[in-house]
């Protein structure tokens, strides 16, 4: 019998021609307990199911929707799922989390994961429920935004189906296309392009069964307690202003990346700040399914309608491109959602192109820092992969820089091919390490080491041993939260996270877990991600930051400069390798490889 909260199986869905077939794939209790679910289990599945060296856009490349034992319980923020695949942007592992009823219905098809392989003959939708899997041609959905496709699918198949869909960018293979559902996005690493390469516009799931937990009364009591705590001061920022609250604060502490990371303060920040917009605009709040925090803030737009705004999309399409008009940024965010592209990668790639134009490396004189209309025009070019600029930028900043040459890779804002989020590495040096070593590439969700930098407990301008410990610690905590799965915006409510998480998981699964076992799971998951990347050709040379960060001091608002040179970063990386039990080339010891259960 499967442990509480699990079914003990994944469904392997092979699409080909006009048909889809589903095959159960057993997930042993040992694997489930070792990887927990979500990102952890998805990583293990990729190891097992992705042929080594596979082209991420080839039919054989698997795309996994992965749930966890907590999905479907009343625990707040647990209605989430991970999407895991080999990234067409980085060529390495990517995983993205999103939350909606899709998570609950997907799991209640009776599976802990749904893994899709193959390629349909024509644009189709894939339906999965208790009756099995089937493929339906959907040429009429071509070019639609994900939200429109979702609406169309609902009217065609019925309201009790839940849909994850791609926009036009995913169909056209933009390397940072997203998968969207209910207005939320599995955003990073180009998962939408992977689904598009399978000729699948949307995956529809319908609940067909139930799942039981080990201690129903205990889970209910824990859910009540967690819900109560979710209304406390640790989540106030998310409730009251949402993540956009970061913008003005980051500007004040010189860590708001501006004009392609040439500055860390932006003169237009006040116009884009949540604090200002809340006074000037109508704002509605919304939340993901099963969430008591409700961090989403939807701002009214000039001319009607609303747009959900998060710090990352405002940073990337605003300051990073030098744009300060909120309506331009709202419009650009909306365009990214319509096309189905990752706002961070889009903004980073466009900002890089703007700098190339300034330096005379790209001949598109209209593409200038500060011009919001130019950002929109560039987004359209990317979404349609129009010949020339659109085709170039649809590849992401690393590939585009390799094509343009002239040293433009030095200022391409990426690590391992993934564009940097809105955290300036030179003024947040724990975060700098996290960005450099993370398996997914430059990423703020799998490595939240900025927490330590902004805590005042270490010198954020002088990375050293304390910063290494902070980066390892936050990466471990993220690995567990992303695998069990709970929303990371809840993290501040846990005083003793591993112990409390072990207790929650024990109530659901029935496993007698303790904090140490969960810490072990965290290390295993981080190692398994690295093992996948090593298998796919990554080396220690990929653990780095763009040359700009290591060669150019950053002027701070205080008048000082922040410096992060290559030696300091290398020394932190060496500390990280040692803390993770890796050799000096970042490779995994044989005994640790065995612990990954890759043959189980």
């Amino acid at each position, binding site marked *: 019998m499967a442990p509480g909260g699990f079914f003990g199986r994944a469904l392997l869905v092979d699409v080909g021609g006009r048909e889809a077939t589903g095959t159960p794939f057993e997930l042993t209790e040992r694997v489930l307990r070792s990887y927990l679910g979500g990102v952890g289990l998805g990583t293990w599945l990729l190891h097992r199911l992705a042929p080594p060296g596979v082209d991420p856009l080839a039919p054989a490349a698997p795309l996994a929707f992965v749930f966890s034992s907590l999905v479907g319980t009343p625990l707040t923020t647990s209605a989430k799922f991970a999407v895991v695949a080999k990234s067409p942007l980085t060529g390495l592992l990517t995983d993205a989390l999103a939350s909606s009823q899709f998570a609950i219905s997907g799991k209640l098809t009776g599976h802990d994961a749904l893994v899709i392989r193959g390629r349909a003959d024509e644009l189709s939708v894939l339906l999965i429920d208790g009756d099995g899997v089937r493929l339906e041609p959907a040429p009429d959905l071509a070019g639609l935004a994900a939200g429109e496709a979702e609406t169309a699918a609902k009217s065609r198949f019925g309201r009790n189906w839940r849909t994850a869909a791609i926009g036009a960018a995913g169909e056209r293979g933009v390397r940072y296309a997203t998968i969207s559902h209910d207005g939320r996005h599995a955003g990073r690493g180009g998962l939408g392009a992977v689904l598009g390469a399978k000729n699948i516009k949307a995956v529809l799931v319908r609940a067909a069964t139930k799942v039981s937990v080990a201690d129903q009364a205990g889970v209910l009591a824990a859910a009540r307690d967690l819900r109560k705590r979710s209304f406390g001061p640790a989540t106030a920022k998310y409730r009251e202003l949402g993540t956009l609250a970061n913008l*003005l604060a980051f500007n004040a*502490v010189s860590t708001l990346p501006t004009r392609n990371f040439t500055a860390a303060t932006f003169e237009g920040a006040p116009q884009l700040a949540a604090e200002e917009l809340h006074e000037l605009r109508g704002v509605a709040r919304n939340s993901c399914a099963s969430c008591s925090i409700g961090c989403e803030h939807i701002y009214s737009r000039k001319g009607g309608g609303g747009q959900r705004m998060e710090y990352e999309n405002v940073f990337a399409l605003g300051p990073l491109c030098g744009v300060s008009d909120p309506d331009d940024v709202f419009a650009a965010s909306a365009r990214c959602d319509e096309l189905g592209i990752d706002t961070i990668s889009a903004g980073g790639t466009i900002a890089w192109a703007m700098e190339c134009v300034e330096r005379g490396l790209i001949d598109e004189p209209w593409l200038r820092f500060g011009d919001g209309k130019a950002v929109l025009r560039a987004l359209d070019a990317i979404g349609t992969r129009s010949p020339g600029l659109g085709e170039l930028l649809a590849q992401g900043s690393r590939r585009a820089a390799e094509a343009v040459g002239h040293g433009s890779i030095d200022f391409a804002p990426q690590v391992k091919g993934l564009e940097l989020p809105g955290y300036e590495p030179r003024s947040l040096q724990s975060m700098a390490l996290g960005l450099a070593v993370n398996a997914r590439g430059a990423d703020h969700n799998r490595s939240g080491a900025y927490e330590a930098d902004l805590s005042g407990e270490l010198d954020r301008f002088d990375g050293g041993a304390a910063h290494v410990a902070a980066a390892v610690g936050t990466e471990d905590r993220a690995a567990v939260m992303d695998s069990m799965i709970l929303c990371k915006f809840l993290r501040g409510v846990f005083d003793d996270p591993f112990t409390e998480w072990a207790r929650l998981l024990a109530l659901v699964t029935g496993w007698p877990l303790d904090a140490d076992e969960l810490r072990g799971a965290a290390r295993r998951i981080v190692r398994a991600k690295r093992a996948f990347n090593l298998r796919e050709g990554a080396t220690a040379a990929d653990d780095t930051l763009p040359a700009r960060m290591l060669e150019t001091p950053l002027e701070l608002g205080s008048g000082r400069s922040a410096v992060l040179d290559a030696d300091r970063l290398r020394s932190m990386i060496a500390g990280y390798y040692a803390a993770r039990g890796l050799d000096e080339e970042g490779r995994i010891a044989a005994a640790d490889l065995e612990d990954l259960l890759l043959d189980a």
Partner: protein
Amino acid sequence: MGKPKAWLEWHGSTLLYRATAVLARTVGGPVVVVAAPGQELPPLPSGVTVVEDPVEGLGPMQGLAVGLAAVADRAETAFVCSTDLPFLHPAFVRCVLRGLASGPDVVLPVARGFRQPLAAGYRTALAGLVADLLAEGDLRPGMLFKHCEVAQLSDEQLLADTALARHDPMLESVVNVNTPEDYAAARDRPPPEIVVECFGALAKKGGHRPRGVRTATLGAAAASVGLTLDRHVVAALNGDQITRDELLPLVAGDVVSFLSADAGG
């Protein structure tokens, strides 16, 4: 004064705490206190270290020799000051240290009518020379200045520094307290004028806009806007270091930004 100067109360801490914390927030390198043999000191800011002077009663030159030697392996230059400068401003320290960049061994302010050897900049390599002079019985700073290159800074030269002119136009950085009356007068002064901003969930309606307040410490600045520096709140000083040190001394012109401790995400 009833107690040693180092222990004199200053806005919730002591004069010594203020002096060392102002230096710590200003310079990039180590901050060292030279204590007399067996001298008990009040609590110090984290990171500030104490070296004991092995010989008692030889005056400031002996302290200078010990202090310069203590940091010589980590810094080429040092700002040296006494405990009792309650209005020492970081702009003054920066201005003096900048003077060492052009090569002199000592930058000696001549401010408010007096030479200020205990608010001056020294090359740490002078430690040996100072020790030699002491061994020869030369206990006065004036003797040291005869043996090395000294750049004097007049009031006008000091005030040519725009930051110093703006924040300390009367050069009160060098005002010391030698009598109970001096101390009482200094303590009666209004605290410095600083600017406070609150961000995110800490900003009540319009609260993110800068506002001027008069406070001498970070804790008092937080209280002035209804905040406590608990686990959910941190502060950035002038957009630079982030801290929760309630006793951190503030000076005229400071900008304090209060942020949610869970910034990011």
